[in-house]
């Protein structure tokens, strides 16, 4: 069953917490991964791979560049999950 937007944000918050050590409640839709959440380009790959596993989506490298904010990632996952 597809995850809801709320579930996706919660899942991403767990992932970002695990990889970058940022508290879950700081991971909100308007936050930029790089500027606000201490997720650099390499950590972003780890976030993406973890999100792929958790939500059953494929996020190719070319699309990763377009995911600037948490909201971008939530939207991408929401529209690509099967």
């Amino acid at each position: 069953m597809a995850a809801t937007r709320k579930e996706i944000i919660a899942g991403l918050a767990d992932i970002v917490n695990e990889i970058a050590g940022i508290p879950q409640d700081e991971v909100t839709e308007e936050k930029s991964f790089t500027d606000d959440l201490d997720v650099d380009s390499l950590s972003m790959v780890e976030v993406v791979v973890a999100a792929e596993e958790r939500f059953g989506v494929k996020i190719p490298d070319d699309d990763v560049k377009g995911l600037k904010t948490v909201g971008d990632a939530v939207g991408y996952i929401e529209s690509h999950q099967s």
Partner: protein
Amino acid sequence: MPAAINARPGSPYARIMGVGGYRPSRVVTNEEILERIDSSDEWIRSRSGIVTRHWAGEDETVAEMSVAAAGKAIADAGIGAEQVDAVIVSTVSHFAQTPSIATEIAHRLGAGKPAAFDISAACAGFGYGVTIGTGLIVAGSARHVLVIGVERLSDLTDHEDRSTAFLFGDGAGAVVLGPSPEPAIGPTVWGSEGDKADVITQTVPWDEYRPGDAFPALRQEGQTVFRWAVYEMAKVAQEALDAAGVAPEQLDVFIPHQANMRIIDSMVKTLKLPESVAVARDIETTGNTSAASIPLAMERMLATGQARSGDTALVIGFGAGLVYAATVVTLP
């Protein structure tokens, strides 16, 4: 009826008998790198783990560094140079295709007339060389094989590119392979993924380079390489462990290609290696030396006591091609 042809019996197995390395005398700090790029020591360290690297001087040529490293490996193996039957050199930074650099190195070592040739397998070159060398010994084509990984990547670096200027280093690492009564080099899990040939490349092919142009340099798609190295290569490393029949708890040492500290750390995490496994982190003071990185790290770990002779080590190289090679070995 065809004539009966004699075959030369080989050794049942091969082992690494000795290892040697050469690091250029000039140590280059991040501060020096920062003279030509807009970045910071903190940024370089957090993205790569590199603090210093060695760059070769004019007289520290590919041949010179190789002879130095190989001489140490031969001495460590306890054989004479004349006992070397084959010399395999892996490099992407020897800038003459003909003749191969292996013949000059063999001659300068006083190895007599061994078979000698170069291979091109980028950062997987060491594993490719060891695999070929092992085959030669088992097939009876050679008794002792010298495998050298050598690079002057500072020559192939765009010193003004802030994403790669800090990454590369120079050096040579060598091992001597010889016959063994029991298995000491596991099955190699190796391969290539030519569909990703454009992920790590040389900016300008030699036949398009003209004097006065910017010299060719290595470039890579960092995120793509990172994802492939961490997640796909962890699977290859696991396959090599399985093929050798070695459980993670039985492993003493892990020597991945020293590409980037972040790749090394993530691989260790993905592979779930026990904390008892000593992990090579030579990149901190050596940078990425491509084909030379694994034997250089191996030599340093043995010299500093992080690893011991007889330890079981997982080695994996991966890089431009894309190519990869992983195997489990007993350390010399």
